[in-house]
């Protein structure tokens, strides 16, 4: 709000000043069955267009795989959705009521968007249990977390997730001493504790064995439905496995959508073959 409009408002004696009115976070509305809208988004860093007029729609409960060569703008796209990077132009809406571009990272996270980083980032000094505890959905105000205690229901939820990510035997282990694959799983577990509506998963199987990859694919598929899941991945076998026959795959190239469709359609798309799959 600029100074002029503020002054005009102060002179208007008939209404409560808008800066005095309580601000309500709008409720998530997915009435049109679309959870995430990205429209006409562009962003450039020092003249390099990382994202160029990107349009992407994610349905509620959908599992979407996004592939693309290095530098296609996959991570930048996630940065925009989670509030880390502001686009130069375009609109990003979560449901029909929440404007992501007006919010910062914590607000977006609390609105229900969770993110898993490319490099597994867990809190290495804390135990597995404490990592999950911190991730648990709940009030994040300073005074609230000072007094927070786990109740029975939350404890059950923690145990459930520990079981799911295969770390049930190691709740008191320092997260820093886990193996690479276990850290990946722990981070997925942390996402689950957050209970987000939309999960952004950046290269979840990097550094995993084939067995672990299969289990990860299984887990992500099982999450779709209750959550929407967006998976960015390099590993084609994994994407093929995850997308199956009927899920949508999006191919990014130079910051915009090159192709979108089922895996077999995308794989046979001539443009896609040229830039990515042809190798």
């Amino acid at each position, binding site marked *: 709000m600029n100074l002029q409009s503020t002054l005009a408002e102060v002179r208007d004696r008939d209404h409560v000043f808008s800066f005095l009115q309580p601000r309500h976070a709008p409720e998530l509305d997915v009435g049109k069955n679309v959870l995430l809208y990205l429209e006409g988004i562009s962003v450039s860093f020092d003249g390099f267009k990382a994202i160029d007029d990107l349009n992407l729609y994610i349905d509620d409960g959908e599992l979407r795989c996004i592939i693309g060569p290095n530098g296609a703008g996959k991570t930048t796209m996630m940065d925009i959705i989670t509030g880390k990077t502001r686009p130069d132009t375009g609109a990003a809406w979560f449901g029909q009521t929440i404007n992501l571009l007006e919010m910062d990272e914590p607000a977006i996270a609390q609105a229900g968007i969770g993110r898993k980083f490319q490099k597994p980032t867990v809190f290495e*000094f804390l135990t597995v249990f404490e990592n999950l505890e911190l991730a648990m959905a709940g009030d994040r105000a*300073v005074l609230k977390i000072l007094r*927070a205690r786990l109740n029975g229901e939350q404890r059950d939820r923690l145990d459930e997730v520990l079981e799911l990510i295969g770390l049930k035997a190691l709740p008191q282990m320092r997260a820093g001493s886990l193996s690479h694959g276990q850290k990946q799983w722990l981070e997925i577990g942390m996402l689950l504790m957050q209970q987000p509506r939309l999960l952004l998963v950046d290269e979840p199987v990097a550094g995993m064995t084939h067995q672990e990859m299969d289990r990860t694919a299984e887990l992500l598929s099982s999450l779709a439905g209750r959550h929407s899941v967006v998976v960015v991945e390099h590993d084609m076998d994994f994407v093929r496995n995850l997308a199956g026959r009927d899920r949508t795959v999006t191919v990014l190239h130079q910051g915009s959508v090159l192709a979108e469709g089922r895996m077999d359609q995308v794989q046979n798309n001539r443009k896609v073959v040229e830039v990515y799959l042809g190798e």
Partner: protein
Amino acid sequence: MFLWRIMKDDRGGQILLALLALAIVLVPILNSLPTDSALHLPTYTVTLIGKYLTLALLAVAVDLVWGYLGILTLGHGAFFALGGYAMGMYLMRQIGDRGVYGNPKLPDFMVFLNWQELPWFWQGFDQFWFAAIMVMLAPGILAFVFGALAFRSRVSGVYLSIITQALTFALMLAFYRNEMGFGGNNGLTDFKDLLGFNLQSDSTRIGLFIASALALAFAYLLCRYLMQSRLGRVCVAVRDAESRARFMGYRVENVKLWIFTISAMIAGVAGALYVPQVGIINPNEFSPLNSIEVVVWVAVGGRATLYGAVVGALVINYAKSYFTAELPDVWLFALGGLFVLVTLLLPRGITGLLRSREAVS
């Protein structure tokens, strides 16, 4: 029960609190023994230990923000000195007409500067309760405003360290000026009494020692309470992976702001207890070097343990007193050497060494 809950996993803290309790009981007894007894503790030594305890309190405040939150503050001396000045102003007003110029209202330096009336910010400091509030409020407000600006604009790492350093340096220059009304480079001194008790008497000095020990114990419990809660784990999370915490929905800047402010208030209390025991407060306390030295104490004692900060402050300050008296030329080399050795050989400080012994056995 509450105390037990927050202290039960903290062996070092239990020992520290037990030692403090022991000192509170034992020091007055040893001091009251006849002077020719072998166990007699001179009042000079009592005051010296009391001074160390206030410095340990400052170290705990620094460990809270550096050890747990990863904010390398090089300006905590500013909060310490502000608390000290608030206490000094009260002590100045207590002098009353016993000053050299005998002015019942104005402290000597104001008479000397030909001031006619008390500046507005000196009002109220004739009341102890007011001064006691200001001891915490002045550093608290400064830390809050500074932190709100710095943390909201996401200044971190070495840049933040440099700004904290600039903060204390700027305050030092400001307090050196006579026009500021804090006694210029002479500072505030020549105190007579505190709450009506003569500052030179043995019993007042014992009382100040006990107050310092109690303040240290209380602040330790407060910090431990904060750090064993989920808030404490969020602090560690912020220290180790700040952006992850942010993407998890934590308002990192608020967490930092509150802990930083609390820490500054603890530092203020430390300064307020320090001043009556050393008898002077001057702008030198704002010197950037002092703040850096505190960080060295914490590093030597062991970061992120709280009791490590106490150990570090006591060991180094004792060493400082010893070396400056016995081998004045060596002191700076000893301090430098100690820091190099600790960084190379004991990255987790002195207490880290003890803890790893414990883990092995």
